[in-house]
């Protein structure tokens, strides 16, 4: 799940990875749930997990890598401590979404998809958070917020997602 990935990351451990995967091995079509679980545990899907997953699910490493790189939610590197998603969908565009997106990249100093060098923040674009009557919409550390313009975004990022 998306919420608070940055707050719960554990350091890499093969044992923990195997245990995390094991909980989903009996499901039908387990690859996506397994990758989600690994990401939730470690904050991202470590390259060291790819061969383990392939072996456990009896698929090729290419299959695992293909899925890992197809889905934009699945990360191959550690995200920043604060994670910001800005909606780029049409409904948010209609109420100043373009300006908010520009402000976000400028004020956070990263492009969409990027993480600040000091690891403080990751900025992602997202196409619709389903809050289309109350845009522009963002999430900060998994918390959804509507009617967010430049000033509100700055305050949310500073407070890690909690409104003052």
């Amino acid at each position, binding site marked *: *799940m*998306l*919420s608070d990935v940055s707050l719960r990351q554990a350091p890499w451990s093969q044992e923990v990875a195997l245990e995390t995967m094991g909980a989903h091995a009996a*499901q*039908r*079509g*387990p*690859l*996506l*749930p397994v*990758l*989600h679980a690994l990401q939730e545990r470690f904050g991202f899907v470590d390259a060291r997990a790819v061969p383990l997953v392939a072996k456990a*699910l009896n*698929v090729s490493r290419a*299959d695992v890598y*293909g*899925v890992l790189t*197809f*889905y*934009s*939610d*699945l990360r191959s590197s550690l995200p920043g401590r604060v994670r910001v998603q800005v*909606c780029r*969908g*049409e*409904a*948010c*565009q*209609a*109420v100043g979404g*373009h300006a908010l997106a520009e402000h976000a990249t400028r004020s956070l100093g990263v492009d969409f998809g990027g993480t600040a060098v000091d690891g403080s923040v990751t900025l992602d674009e*997202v*196409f*619709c*958070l*389903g*809050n*289309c*009557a*109350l*845009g522009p919409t963002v999430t900060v550390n*998994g918390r*959804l*917020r*509507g*009617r967010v313009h430049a000033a509100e975004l700055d305050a949310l990022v500073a407070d890690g997602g909690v*409104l003052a």
Partner: protein
Amino acid sequence: MGADEVAAAIEAEAVRRGVVVQVVRNGSRGMMWLEPLVEVVTANGRVAYGPVTPRDVAALFEAGFLGGGAHELGHGDTDQIPWLAQQDRLTFARVGVVDPLSAQDYEGHGGLVALRRALVMTPAQICDEVTESGLRGRGGAGFPVGVKWRTVLDAVDLPKFVACNADEGDSGTFADRMLMEGDPFMLIEGMVIAGIAVGAHEGFVYVRSEYPDAVAALAAAIAAAYKAGWLGPRVLGSDYGFDLEIRVGAGAYICGEETAMLESLEGKRGVVRAKPPLPALEGLFGKPTVVNNVLSLASVLVVLARGAQFYRDFGVGRSRGTQVFQLGGNVGRGGIVETAFGITLGQMLERFGGGTASGRPIRAVQVGGPLGAYLPPARFDLPLDYEAFAAAGAMLGHGGIVVFDDTVDMAVQARFAMEFCAAESCGKCTPCRVGAVRGVEVIDRIVAGRDVAAGVVLLEDLLELMAEGSLCAMGGLTPMPVRSVLQYFPEDLDRSEGTP
């Protein structure tokens, strides 16, 4: 919007004043323009206050809002608010009214009536009744639900599956989310009924990862449904068993396309499949599969609980029943508007939309998500029904209506349609994968004023190729918004005259 903070503030203020209040976190009534909305249950019904901020809470207590006292944020009886009273809330009857996770509340408000009926009907009878109701798939394509179910019922291969498409990725649509958060048992009941109708004992709900609150609500509801015996080996004490599992997507828009969703459920990249074979015959893991949208499955409950004829009596032409429209974007009073098919787009915007949020005139309205047409005020006479929209080169899709004021640059919107397609294409077919990239380039050249006439001819050619040659609706419908800009807002693309 800060509802958590408001709820906390009310509880804190109540403690401070020594008053006992029970705060229930129900789903939204869909009146987004009044959110955060606080409703107080009084002897005279439910009284609405909104939009409430934590700073208003003390004043509300002073005004005696716990007894329905007057306050400038007060709107009286919630059900009498004209915006709500003018709707036909069938599918959304319980949303915002009940405690979403209370099984008791659900049953007390008409839940399980449809399932109890389905358990004493034959599968064929259920399919026939759903067909008779005229219910069409609410995910966008509008295929008759009963006909699809019948195809799966008649398939001989086993096992069969029910897969709910809750990958509501279209910008401007949020009805699936509101239903899953506000009345998750309804979706569960609908899936069990679909299972009975086609002979499936296993179901999956594929929810997009952008909806973590919906995932949480649904997961809790599924656990409660197992506990109550609504899911599991003996549904409501019958011999029929049904198991249900949630799967969470991972940020790929294309997985809202049914075959890409099935691939994703199988643990693969979300790449679309060629049809045929139809998923109804060879779907999940190659087995016969019902794939339905959240609202389709939820609407089946209305059909079975109140009869096909009751549902059919709403709507016009071949668009029967109600559609859950979603008003969003730059709109004065946005939210969920469930109404019978047939009112015009203009009536929808006038009665419910209340103009733009910015107060400026409306210039364009995009209906049906990122793949839907942009319509100018001159087309607001279009009735909201599948056929009328199709005839006008537009589509109703999942019922999203996104309003833009006169500051919108339609060339940017046309370009965005192509950009979005380029970003989200699964890459399987060339018209979509390459066409979208070329589309962005051609639009850039036109907007830059370089040989505009030739550029438009080239763009139209490309649009035809994408529309006719793509495997699925992603590449096939991306031309729709672009064409609508060419047709209704050509002045934004051709800047060779007038604009410096």
